[in-house]
């Protein structure tokens, strides 16, 4: 059996060695900056890439894009988001770059080890005294979750319908306070439910809608909300991440969302463009229109 090789980029110096010990038998190597990571990717083969948002020269999203350009979707990626990361970056990572797992700072090492083990199809990395039987229970749990999603899907989509009605009213300038509060509440519930059912991008969209609906909406806010709610429906109507029907584990239905916040078809849903027609597949440069904040995020590492 080939030994799994993990490339970490931007993690604290001791993290790679620690992760190697925790995963046992896995070769974990560390890149100190973006260029080292890009060079290392060329010299693979790698089983997993773990990237920290604090990575620079080039920045972490660009390294992920380079990995995708070079290796396609074969290489699982775990991305550690900084505390200032926005929803646009999150969407790009999940939808366009096909990142398998998002972790959040302050990083929990055990959570990182579990995410890596999961991506490598290894038994769960032990945490203190955690033992293997939990791994044996996962497959029945996954099957039960998939069945639960099928039963819950309609109710979840009804929540999206509440949001769609509110956003329609918002666009038409007739959103009253009662409807706004109801929609804000439904968006909040979707933040928790979507990602839990395997739609992390849906959670990110719902969080933005919740925020947008929480306060006064002006300028391009209504148009942005219309695009977000259409993308949310497209996302939730696809197969959840990690299931047989998912496209690489993630949805690409709203791949033009970035550059087209306004156009929505009469049915309220943005039509899915033919693959490559919008150029999304041709380039994974982050981001298509503007760069994230140049300020380096604060990195914290909890134990």
């Amino acid at each position: 059996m080939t030994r799994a090789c993990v490339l970490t980029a931007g993690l604290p110096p001791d993290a790679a060695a620690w992760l190697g010990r925790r995963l046992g038998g896995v070769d974990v190597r560390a890149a100190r900056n973006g260029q080292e990571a890009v060079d290392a990717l060329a010299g693979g083969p790698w089983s997993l890439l773990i990237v920290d948002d604090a990575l620079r020269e080039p920045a972490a999203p660009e390294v992920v894009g380079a990995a995708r350009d070079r290796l396609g979707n074969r290489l699982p990626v775990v991305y550690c988001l900084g505390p200032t990361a926005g929803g646009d970056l999150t969407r790009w990572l999940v939808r366009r770059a096909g990142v398998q797992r998002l972790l959040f700072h302050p990083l929990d090492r055990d959570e990182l080890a579990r995410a890596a083990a999961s991506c490598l199809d290894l038994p769960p990395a032990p945490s203190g005294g955690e033992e293997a039987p939990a791994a044996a229970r996962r497959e029945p749990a996954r099957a039960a979750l998939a069945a639960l999603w099928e039963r819950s899907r309609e109710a979840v989509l009804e929540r999206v319908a509440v949001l769609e009605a509110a956003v329609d009213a918002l666009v038409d300038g007739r959103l009253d306070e009662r409807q706004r509060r109801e929609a804000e509440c439904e968006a909040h519930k979707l933040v928790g439910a979507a990602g839990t059912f395997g739609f992390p991008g849906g959670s990110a969209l719902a969080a933005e809608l919740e925020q947008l609906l929480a306060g006064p909406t002006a300028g391009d806010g209504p148009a942005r909300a219309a695009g977000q709610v259409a993308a949310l429906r497209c996302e939730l109507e696809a197969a959840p991440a990690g299931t047989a029907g998912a496209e690489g584990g993630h949805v690409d239905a709203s791949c033009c969302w970035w550059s087209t916040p306004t156009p929505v078809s009469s049915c309220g849903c943005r039509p899915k463009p033919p693959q490559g027609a919008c150029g999304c597949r041709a380039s994974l440069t982050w981001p298509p229109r503007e760069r994230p904040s140049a300020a380096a995020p604060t990195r914290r590492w909890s134990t």
Partner: protein
Amino acid sequence: MPTKRILLVDDEEDIRQVVKLSLQLVGGWDVVTAGSGSEGVAAALARLPDVILLDVMMPDLDGPATLRRLQSQPATRDIPVILLTAKAQAADRRRFAELGVAGVITKPFDPMELPGQVAETLGWQR
């Protein structure tokens, strides 16, 4: 070792079902659920769980108010409480920490990882 008993208090049926499934099938624990803060307090008194997972935003009696009721009852004041919340901003976390909870788990969560998160928060061996 006796099986742990977990009480989940959340007004959302979807989340209750996912958490129950996760903690039972992956964690191997007994799970009791309640759909409101008042039901949760009653269930805690009746079942005396090993830990309570408590949603923050619920109609009527929200998570912090439910927590205060639990802390006011001698029978339940020492049961560890973990908050479940989609409010993950640093200010929210600081506010929650001041409530005297054992931990905070952010929604959305990975159902496969949830039992591990609970065990780690409480220092349980699994």
